[in-house]
């Protein structure tokens, strides 16, 4: 009986020893991983700092001004002026065609309709050509187009402002 007890306790001690050994090495491995991760985070942060600094450097006002000046013919950008503010009436909204109400729409009113069709050929909302400065007017023969009608053939996103394309 005594010997059994002795053996049992020896086994328990050995078991605890093994457990402690494993926990110790697991902890050390975890600590090493944490340190590696922190190094990685620090590296990423440093990279972000550099990227932010580069972004700010590439967007510095002097450089932007030079770029605007160099691409004046393509962009036609100038300083913001008081007459550049637009009016809501200058925005062209999509023309909406309600679906026909004559068949199979019992009990449904127009107000209930959530799905509305956009007029065929309408390419999407677009602003009117922005007002041009007098000095940029190419020639008196060109009439600045300010009419809100938009021809369906013009692709919306890639075309230059209507005034410039004429």
């Amino acid at each position, binding site marked *: 009986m005594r010997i059994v007890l002795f053996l049992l306790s020896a086994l328990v001690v050995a078991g605890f020893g093994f457990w402690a050994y494993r926990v110790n090495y697991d*902890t050390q491995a975890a*600590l090493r991983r*944490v*340190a590696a991760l*922190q190094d990685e*985070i*620090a590296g990423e*942060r*440093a990279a972000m*700092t*550099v990227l*932010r*600094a580069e*972004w*700010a*450097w590439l*967007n*510095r*006002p*002097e450089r932007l001004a030079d770029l605007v000046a160099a691409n004046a013919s393509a962009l036609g950008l100038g*300083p*913001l*002026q*008081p*007459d*550049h*503010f637009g009016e809501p009436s200058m925005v062209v909204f999509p023309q909406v065609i309600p679906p026909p109400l004559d068949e199979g729409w019992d009990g449904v009113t127009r107000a209930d309709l959530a799905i509305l069709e956009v007029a065929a050929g309408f390419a999407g909302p677009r602003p009117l050509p922005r007002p041009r400065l007098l000095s940029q007017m190419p020639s008196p023969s060109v009439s600045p187009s300010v009419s809100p009608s938009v021809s369906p053939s013009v692709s919306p996103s890639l075309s230059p402002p209507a005034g410039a394309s004429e």
Partner: protein
Amino acid sequence: MIRKPLRPLAGVLRARAAGGDPDALEAHRRAERQQALRATERRRAEWRLTLLGFLVLAGFLTAAGRMAAVATSDPSEPTAGVSAARITAARADIVDRAGRVLATNLPTRGLYVQPSLMIDPAAAAEGLAAIFPELEPVELEARIRQGRFFWVRQSISPEQRQRVHELGEPGLQFAPREMRLYPAGRAVSHVLGGAAFGQLDVSAAELLGTAGVEHWFDARLRDPAQAGVPLALSLDLSAQVALREVLARGVETYKAKGAAGIVMSARTGEVVAIVSLPDFDPNARPRDAKDPRLFNRAVQGLYELGSTFKLFTAALAMDRGVLGPESMVNTQGPLVWGRFKIRDFHRMPAQMSLRDVIVESSNTGTARVAMMMGVTAQQDFLRGLGFLEPTSLQLSEASQAKPMAPPRWSELSMMTISFGHGLAATPLHLAAGYASLANGGLRVRPTLVKGGSAPTEADRVVGPETSRHIREMLRAVVTDGTGRNADVPGYLVGGKTGTADKPQPGGGYARDKVIQTFAAVFPMNDPEYVVVISIDEGSIFAAGETRRTAGWIAAPLAGETIRRIAPILGMRPLPPTAPEPDAGATLVSN
């Protein structure tokens, strides 16, 4: 264990048979027993003491061993537990009100020489001289041979670092550094100031602010707890760039020596743009502290601000109820006081309303108004507007610019100060004063930090009614007076010109050296921003003669500034056809 009976019968019997005394025998035995007991206890106590001694010794040895271990080992951060994210940038960024970066850090490397590791000093010196042409190889080699550690460069570019690396010399070593970078460049040079290396070490270097915001907020920017939070200024980078552009063009057109411009919120005192010309590139700050480009005219330059001061005299008279805007003032000139004569710039009628005194900018009229008010009232009023102390702007330069008031505030001083001569203050003082008068009468304290709080009733300097009259007068100056060139359609600009003769070093005033100032407020029905433009010795040949007055030089620049900056700040102009609303209605801005 077999117990011995205390009085064994056999022993007693034996003692009796031998004729002895059983009691004595018994006593002897008891004594023996007790002696043995004492001996045992003594042994035990000795053992206990020894053990205790060993324990104490072991404790001391453990502590001593631990101390020795701690003392001899290298320190290390505790790695377990929640360690805070490591800080990469030692100095916080500075951003403008929209979050655009004005100052940030860039990791770079310093280069140093460790002669003890050096293998071939001659080759190293040659190689370094090839990379950095300004280094002298012979001198460098002699310095390396002295055998002492020294710095070669505090920050080198990645290309230079690669070339140094390619020399393959172990004695040339790199130290990590952070370099301060100002992407916005010249536009913010004076506001930001600069930073320089403080304590140097091979593993890091201190970055200390040397001027401007960098110096004022040095502790905040270096605080490790706030290193990740950028410092947000009230500046608007777009407005700042636009203001600088306008001023630079003005300096060129009018061949001026310099210029200063301020755009400030009239309600909160937040400075939206502040420019001083000539300026410098903050990424290559001039080393010489006496370099004139380092001088910030907007906050350091103490100038007599000329006729712009007349408004304060008028405001004082109206606020104390002495005069109303239509009260008539004697404007006959010249006004003789002792051996001094006060004249007007051009002929004026003998009597004008207070409003016209301001609109036509009459020196004699203003001086007479000041005489009605007295020295003490004028001093108190100017003190209330902050004209006798440095401004509260968070720039070290600003806190040292104490206005120059006459040491003895005589009646003559009072009369000259009433139209802006004799008291020298900075353009920023003027901006704060105009903002305080125009915004309804609450004193505004300039600030550079985003989120300035509006002044309260406790900061009142003039009544709302006076402020309304002031606004009407300022608007009239621009519509019918000397400030016509500053008008911008749709923005209801009001303002006042000021042309001050420059004092000569020897005393007296220079004949044709003037400082032209224009202080504008817009929109006049509900002031949002104050613009102060100050030009140093500008002149233009126009309409047949050389013009030096503020109406010709500073007013057009103020108008141009408003034209450029108001849309940037999101203010819509009023439609041109609409009648001007009364002062008090709200202008819609987006």
